């Protein structure tokens, strides 16, 4: 593995590539804030970022953000409003891509950010949905980022905070009234998992430089399907790295 970038920097670069030019992106906390900044500065100059706190931006904030509500994210915003207005756009299908963080994900892309174990007396109480459930249900497509560990990529999440493809059966989302298309990628510290068109079970699409398919499979809590076309994830380019380091100069998100 190259020493020239961290796993988080690679994840940010991969996440940025998920953003298409012109997309309205519902930007989550932490790495996605950087991913938006990187994309906006390279291949997606017409993207718009929507933040649940109640902001829309074009240009990324000019200074480091610890949270999406930090003052540099407000200065120069295109809209400072109420959360429900940002959610209204997403409920109308006007959000092309959302990012969600998760503590646990299963093979069908269901995320748990609420309870590990029985909700009535959990082993671990996680912080909860925030906007995650909203994004998973309402955005047109979404991506999650996660550290690749067997305790995080699990056979079955103990609580579905943010639904992916449910039980994996065809048409599960539509049958249950979920508006958006569902997850398109799980970007981890080891590789990128994707989903078949129309949803279903995740498969390994690419492995990060320095890692192997077997290693990824070993760190996954279910029997991982691997694409015939599995490839090596493209490393961050010089310009992606420069962008990342400009927006996270102290490495708060990408070097800790």
């Amino acid at each position, binding site marked *: 593995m190259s020493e020239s970038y961290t796993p988080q920097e690679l994840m940010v670069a991969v996440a940025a590539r998920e953003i298409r030019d012109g997309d309205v992106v519902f930007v989550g*906390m932490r790495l996605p804030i950087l991913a938006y900044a990187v994309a906006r500065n390279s291949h997606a100059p017409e993207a718009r970022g929507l*933040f*649940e*706190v*109640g*902001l829309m931006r074009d240009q990324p904030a000019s200074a480091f953000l*610890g*949270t*999406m*509500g*930090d*003052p540099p994210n*407000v*200065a120069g*915003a295109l809209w*400072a*409003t*109420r*959360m*429900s207005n940002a*959610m209204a756009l997403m*409920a109308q299908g006007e959000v092309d891509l959302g990012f969600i963080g998760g503590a646990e994900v299963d093979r069908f892309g269901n995320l748990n950010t*609420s309870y590990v174990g029985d*909700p009535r*007396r*959990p*082993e*671990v*109480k*996680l*912080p*909860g*949905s*925030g*906007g*995650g*459930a*909203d994004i*998973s*249900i*309402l955005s047109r497509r979404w991506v999650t980022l996660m550290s690749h560990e067997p305790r995080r990529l699990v056979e079955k999440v103990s*609580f*579905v*905070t*943010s*639904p992916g493809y*449910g039980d994996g059966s065809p048409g599960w*989302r539509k049958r*249950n*009234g*979920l*508006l958006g298309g569902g997850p398109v990628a799980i970007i981890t510290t080891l590789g990128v998992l994707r989903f078949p068109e129309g949803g279903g079970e995740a498969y390994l699409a690419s492995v990060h430089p320095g890692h192997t398919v077997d290693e990824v499979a070993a760190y996954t809590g279910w029997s991982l399907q691997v694409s015939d076309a599995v490839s090596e994830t493209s490393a961050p380019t010089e310009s992606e790295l420069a962008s990342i380091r400009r927006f996270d100069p102290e490495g*708060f998100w990408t070097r800790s």
Partner: protein
Amino acid sequence: MGLKVMSMAQAIERFVPDGATIALGLALEPLIPFAAGHEIIRQQRRDLELVGPISDALFDQLIGAGCVRRVTAAWVGNVSEGLGHCYRRACEQEVPHALEVHDHSNFSISLALWAAAWNVPSLPTRTLLGSDILRTNPDLSVADGLVQVKAVRPDVAIVHVQRADELGRAHAWGPLGVSEEAGLASGRIVISCEELVDASVTLSDPNRILFPETKVAAVVPEPGGAHPSPVQGFFKRDHAFHRDYAERSRTVEGFEGWLRQWVLDVPDRAEYLKQIDPDALRIKHHRPSVPADFGDE
């Protein structure tokens, strides 16, 4: 005139009784009324229900201090650091005591407050379909393919703003989260502000007035009252402070030490601020909005 202006101790004493349902942290990450929360802890309020979308670390602190019976929220933790350790201990070990949790998403908590603001039993939405949150929160139900979100009516909303006048006309700017619907949904509103200003300032821009003054019960001049959360035009977020809190609150003993240092052994916000370096956090680059002309004749 001016009878609404009081100290934080007076405002909490008068408007936050034991058992109250209180909404706070309503702009999400910015403008969190930490000074009010700390005074609630000092006055040893009990059995509170906390309502809010994301409170950053304030809900965690109130829970750790034993003030809280129920949390009705979308997220409880520490935004830049992750898990809320006091919240974990309460839910996992009933330390300091058991906690009831009514899980929401950000959108659904907003709708619960709009339902109360408009005085209807519930509002419908497509969000949460397919989520197990529907299983654990008794205030959510499904009918005709839509989720019905039951109204949440706080007794009081506590809101920190940039400036307010003595009659309770408050100007806040930056993203507003659920501040507006929470204020309208609540029986009363307690305002804390960076600056107490003349009514000529607030009334110069009635569009920026956040709430009807008839709902505002108290105005507390409390500069720095949102630290460590950010206040547009006044203070940056204190990320290091959040990190320190996250580390120290990992254990009960650590949390108790933190609580003594920053809350229990401090009489008020002015003393609290002496322990930090406000100038390092103060925003020094000004970006005044271009005025709007409210000329009428």
